[in-house]
């Protein structure tokens, strides 16, 4: 996994008036029963999570697109069919984890790549299970 700093945190927000400022809209906003904090919702226990920004198109079949942000839980035990971040012989990849009768396979979302069967002597580790995909429009 190539890692580099990609964001500069914004220190100042600009507050702009909504383009639709109908009374109904504002009233609806104030009466909202449900409120959401993104940190609590996406990463309920911060120490268990990390974020990955993916580049490349090879996970499109899993609904993961170039530039998407993955929210990954590093403590969750992977179950069959889950999308995981896997480290294999020192290399990292986003794959679908399959456990078929005790044998572990890593599937690519791209049909061009055959599933990888994990052999016992391989250096293999699941870095985490992808819990959320955030796609920017």
């Amino acid at each position: 996994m190539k890692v580099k700093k990609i964001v500069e945190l914004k220190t100042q927000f600009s507050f702009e008036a909504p383009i639709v400022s109908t009374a109904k809209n504002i009233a609806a906003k104030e009466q909202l029963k449900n409120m959401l904090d993104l940190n609590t919702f996406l990463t309920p226990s911060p120490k268990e999570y990390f974020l990955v920004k993916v580049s490349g198109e090879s996970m499109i079949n899993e609904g993961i697109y170039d530039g998407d942000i993955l929210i990954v839980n590093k403590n969750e035990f992977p179950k069959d069919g889950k999308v995981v971040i896997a480290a294999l012989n020192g290399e990292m990849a986003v794959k679908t984890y399959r456990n078929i009768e005790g044998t572990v396979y890593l599937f690519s979302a791209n049909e061009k790549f055959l599933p990888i069967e994990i052999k016992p002597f391989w250096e293999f580790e699941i870095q985490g299970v992808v819990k959320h995909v955030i796609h920017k429009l």
Partner: protein
Amino acid sequence: MEVIEIIGFKPNDEVSHKMPLFEMSVSAGIPIPVESDINSEVDLNEFLVEHPASTFFARVSGLNMQFAGIRDGDILIVDSSVIPQDGKLILASINSDLTVKIFREVDSEIYLESSNHKFLPLNIGELEFNIIGTVTKVIHSL
């Protein structure tokens, strides 16, 4: 029929909450070497929401097909201060029903494109339209 539930944005400022962010290439499906020396840390409330005062969420349920990359149960981040442009996903109300449509501007006429690719012209007299905001991000939970 899609059901859209509006959820307000209420960041909890009391706890500082920084998540490590890594960048990873999955191009060509071939994994690339691990190099986890530098990372940046982000607060998701700040990282995903540009205008806190005008941002809220819309949870979409009852979708029987994928529409513009949105799947059933996804949470949309909607910013009512972002002026929609052609091809952008918007949250609108039509006769006080909430709906997600693609904003289309053709020859300076505005249309709303729905999942069946029909263009709904905005200048129909009987319908009451409001564009509530532009969808800036989609959160899909696996």
